[in-house]
C-alpha cells in the first residue's frame, strides 16, 4: 500500500481514523506495518504490501 491510502481508509469497526506504523518500506510502498485505530486501538496488519482490514474475528477465523 501507498501512504495516500490513509486519506480514505478508516477503522472497519468504528469508522474512526487510523494511524500508520511502518515496519518495512519498498520505495513508496509500505510492505509491512500496522494500522491502528485512533479510537478503539484495534490493530490491522499490512503484509506483503496489502492492508488487512478485516474485523479481527474474521481475520483469525482460521489459520492462514
Amino acid at each position, binding site marked *: 500500500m501507498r501512504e495516500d491510502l490513509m486519506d*480514505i481508509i478508516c477503522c472497519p469497526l468504528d469508522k474512526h481514523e487510523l494511524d500508520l506504523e511502518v515496519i518495512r518500506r519498498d520505495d513508496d510502498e509500505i510492505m509491512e506495518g500496522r494500522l491502528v485505530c485512533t479510537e478503539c486501538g484495534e490493530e490491522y496488519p499490512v503484509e506483503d504490501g*496489502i492492508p488487512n482490514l*478485516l474485523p479481527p474475528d474474521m481475520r483469525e477465523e482460521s489459520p492462514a
Partner: protein
Amino acid sequence: MSVREEFDRWASEGRDKGMEERHWHTAKHALARMPVEPGDTVLDLGCGSGYAGRALRETADAGRVYGLDAAPEMASNARSYTDDSQVTYLVSDFEHLPFADDSVDHCFSMEAFYYASDPHVALSELARVLRPGGTFYCAVNFYEENVHSHHWPEMVGVEMTRWSEREYRQAFRDAGLHVAGQDRIPDREITIPPADEFPTENWASRADMIERYRTYGTLLTVGVAP
C-alpha cells in the same frame, strides 16, 4: 468452509483468472455504462483477480481504484497483475467497509455481492461510503429468475443470498439507494457447443445452456446514492 477460505483456495489454484475470463463477457458491458469521470475514486467489491478496477483506470481514466476482497490470496494475486500505483488491493469485508463516509464516487461488483452474510448490512455500508450521486453497479449471475443457478450454493459449498430482480430493487431502496435501472446483460460470447454434443458435463440440453447465458445472462442493478 468459509467464503474466505474457499476463495483463498480458488486463488491459490489460479482460478481467479478463469473467473475473470468468463465474467468479462458481461462485466465489460456493465463497466462501459458506468458514469466514471477522469479522476474519480472507484471501489470494486469482491474484486477477485481485480480486473474491473484496472479496466476503469484504462478506459475511463479513473483516479484511485480500490479492489477489496475478503480472501487474502485473491488480493495478493490481484496485486501481482499490475504495477499501477493508483490501483490498491485490500483485504476487507463487505459489511465492515474501511472507508470514510462519502469517500467513493462509484462502486462496481461482479458475482460477489450475494456472498455477504448480511446483504442488507452490506448495502447500508455502501450507501454510507458513496458520495451523493455515486452509483453502485451490482452484477450477479446467481439470482431467483435464473433457475440454472439455483444449485450453485450446494456446488460451491458456501451460503449465497438468492434474491429476485424485485428483491434487489427493494433491498437497494431499503438501504436508501435510488434504483436507476435494472436489466439482464446477455453473454453473447460463451461458446455454445452444437446440439449433438449435449448432454455435456454441465448442461442437460442446449436449450438450457442458451437460456442460462442468452436469456438470463447477468443481472445488473444500478443504485444511486441520493
